[in-house]
């Protein structure tokens, strides 16, 4: 599957220009990669994720594509009980208060 990432990404509608995937920010590439990897591992079915993404896109058309993508991924993980909502917000708090004066993951 990774051999044909662009085709796969385009199949679910990721923005692209001249056949290249377009990321405005690195986290976008990381969440896309997380989703591809987890579905490759069989942690969830790509179609289930895709259905949630389609819902997000139609429910929140004003959001950027990768915000919708991240929300869909998070919902898929919560739905499959791979992660719990509270631990996600707890972890965000921990990272936010970690000492660093730059953007942590670029």
């Amino acid at each position, binding site marked *: 599957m990774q051999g044909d990432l662009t085709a796969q990404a385009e199949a679910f509608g990721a923005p692209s220009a001249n056949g290249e995937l377009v990321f405005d920010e690195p986290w976008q590439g990381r969440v896309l990669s997380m989703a591809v990897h987890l579905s490759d591992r069989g942690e969830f079915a790509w179609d289930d994720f895709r259905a949630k993404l389609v819902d997000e896109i139609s429910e929140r058309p004003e959001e950027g594509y990768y915000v919708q993508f991240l929300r869909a991924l998070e919902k898929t993980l919560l739905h499959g009980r791979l992660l719990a909502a509270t631990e996600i917000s707890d972890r965000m708090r921990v990272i936010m208060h970690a000492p660093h004066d*730059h953007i942590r993951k670029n």
Partner: protein
Amino acid sequence: MDDTPTDMRQVRLRAEALESLLVERGLLMESDIDQVIAQFEQRVGPVNGAKVVARAWTDAEFKLRLLADGTDAIREFRFSGGQVERLVVVENTHVEHNVVVCTLCSCYPWALLGLPPRWYKDPAYRSRIVREPRSVLAEMGLEVPASKRIRVWDSSAEIRYMVLPQRPDGAEALSEKEREALVTRDAMIGVA
């Protein structure tokens, strides 16, 4: 996720929290992500930066503006996204070579250069390029003549640097597209 308006800092934080929890659970390794990213990197490429460089190579007036105020000069390209709060473009000449690093983390002008290469985030590159730039560059395949001064630019939270490579001989005879194809990501970081 709740329904409050999207704060991009929160979004980045959320993405980072997910990754960190998934790694902790053993559902993925950071190297898995890096591997997929590496494939994206090949495709995303530094097309925007290349456009800027190709223009500066042939448009002297644009080059002056670019070196004076990078942020302002690239506005006309209307690149989307990308956190270039303040872009400083530094020019390679026959007496000076420039190279960019972020010693504290991995700040990078990704609006122009796409995703940062993995070595850019590597602690070894980040610390050594400052202390011994000439040998690190040589190890990366770039021999800078002893007659040339090397300047190392350390990114900060606000400033992003991009190197304007020297125009190769004969480039002025090429088309704009052909010129763009000559500009590599590594040249704009200053390691090639």
